[in-house]
């Protein structure tokens, strides 16, 4: 059974490889995004050395690594699931002796792996070449960051799965999916680091899962959060991973009860 799940990763990876040309343009778009934010922040900093504890160099590195991390953990599981629910092909998934959501997660991971190898790594190389990015020299930081990135992927996928499953309960969850996308980008700290949020909002963020996706790992990577505190970041990520399982299981159970396959 396990080998079947692994096969789903392999298959999605190969499928992405078949359509890889789509992704070359993606690298350019991400580079443009990073560039735009780089110049924006440069203007905001002006002559100031640090803002909210970020030096301009740390900010550039934060931007680059956050966007590149997004390239890896971003996936369309919400859309995939919602589409399968809406067109009724989720029925086919139920006649197979596997867990639908795990299969989806594996497919997402196959996609993530592809994006990591063919998007994030070359993208980061290009960005480092253009902008003054300070990559950490300590290999432990790199390894810690990579491990955190796996959690980023898992937590983001959980949010996507939840959003997708909403299609069981509402006729159209398009709006919800868009809202989720904006919320994840904003609150995870890809667009603005959470340290820049107004006090009340950043304390609200402490109680939400989004910071565990980008902000906390990127802070470790840029050296803003010392490596010694990496343990507490892992704990936060792990707690969210477990907590988010609960609504997913509840929704999945409820969905099985009311599963109404469209088109008879």
């Amino acid at each position, binding site marked *: 059974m396990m080998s079947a799940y692994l096969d789903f990763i392999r*298959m999605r990876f190969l499928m992405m490889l078949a359509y890889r040309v789509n992704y070359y343009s993606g690298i350019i778009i991400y580079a443009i995004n990073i560039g735009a934010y780089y110049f924006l922040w440069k203007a905001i900093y002006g002559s100031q050395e640090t803002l909210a504890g970020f030096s301009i160099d740390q900010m550039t590195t934060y931007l680059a690594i956050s966007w590149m991390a997004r390239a890896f953990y971003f996936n369309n599981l919400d859309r995939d699931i919602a589409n399968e629910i809406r067109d009724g092909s989720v029925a086919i998934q*139920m006649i197979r*002796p596997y867990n639908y959501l795990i299969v989806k997660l594996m497919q997402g991971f196959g996609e993530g792996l592809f994006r990591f190898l063919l998007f994030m790594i070359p993208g980061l190389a290009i960005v480092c070449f253009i902008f003054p990015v300070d990559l950490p020299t300590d290999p432990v930081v790199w390894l810690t960051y990579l491990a955190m990135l796996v959690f980023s992927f898992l937590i983001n996928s959980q949010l996507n799965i939840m959003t997708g499953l909403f299609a069981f309960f509402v006729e159209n969850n398009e709006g919800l999916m868009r809202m989720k996308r904006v919320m994840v980008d904003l609150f995870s700290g890809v667009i603005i680091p959470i340290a820049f949020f107004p006090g009340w909002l950043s304390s609200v963020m402490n109680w939400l899962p989004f910071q565990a996706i980008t902000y906390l790992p990127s802070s470790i990577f840029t050296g803003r959060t010392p490596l010694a505190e990496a343990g507490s970041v892992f704990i936060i990520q792990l707690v969210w991973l477990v907590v988010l399982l609960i609504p997913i299981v509840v929704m999945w159970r409820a969905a*099985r009860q009311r599963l109404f396959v469209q*088109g008879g």
Partner: protein
Amino acid sequence: MLAIDVKDLRKQFKVQKNRVGLSGAFKDLFKREYTHVTAVNDITFQIPQGEICGYIGENGAGKSTTIKMLTGILVPTSGELNVNGYVPHRDREKFVKGIGVVFGQRSQLWWDIGVIESFQLLRKVYDVPLNDFNRRLDQLVERLHLGELLNRPVRKLSLGQRMRCELVASLLHNPAIVFLDEPTIGLDIVVKTEIRDFLLEMNRQEGTTILLTTHDLQDIEALCSRVIMLDDGSIIYDGGLEELKTTWSKGREIQFQFGEAMSISRLHQLTSTMNVAWTRENEFTATLFVPHEVNFSEAMGLVVGGAQIRDIKIFETNTDDIVRGIYQTGSAEVKESEDNTQADHVQEKESVLS
């Protein structure tokens, strides 16, 4: 042993009611109204192992909903359900390993990859040992002539090719029960026949239980010893196909071509002693309706003995017409139904003299 045991099975859906107009839409925003639709209404039936059973009914009669409950996709509202020793929705992952399902309207192969890769993935999903898998695949490929299709991506297959691949995909793990939901929809007669022959052979050789829904009654005639007919969520007929025909066809029609002009009164005179009906088509042609309770040869004798005859054709009601009649009246019980519908029930020809 029973392959499928269903008792008082019921499925209700909550369907949103959309109120009319702008104010209705506004009200819907705040308070939804729902109606309960009973798709399957307390049905009970049993299918022993090794039987091929046809499950028929009009669109929306609840066939697909039943199949979806039997395969563990839907959770029933109430009732008892036992398929292949499992309660489908409760032990879904274990249960589905023992069944095969084909939905004629949906593909279960992966669209972007080659057929053989789909099969290999299914092997892993169903935990089929490699030897068994290879043996079974060889058999199926040979039997359904898939040889040259195996390396093509699914999206490049024609419907007939795809449907044969779907069948193979649902049978690779050697299921004890196979559910086929409209497996021959949209297929040409050659592929249909091939699939029917294949299913029949599989049933004979391996004792696979098959439950089949279809709108093509030729599928039923070719395959099924038993028919369950569903209307509006309830079973209206459960029994043999032959019985269905004999209970529902009310008689035979015989068309005579006379060698001389016949008037309607002359015709009536011929069979005045019997309870039969004449329809005169033109001067030389007339049709005699003989109900089952009337002695057929006697009626024939009377006509043949009393008039000069050039040709005789006997029409027997076919299944399509019988089923259409049942769908229209909504019940399979033999009632004192209108005899005039009998006229359009006539099709199948048997030329006796020509």
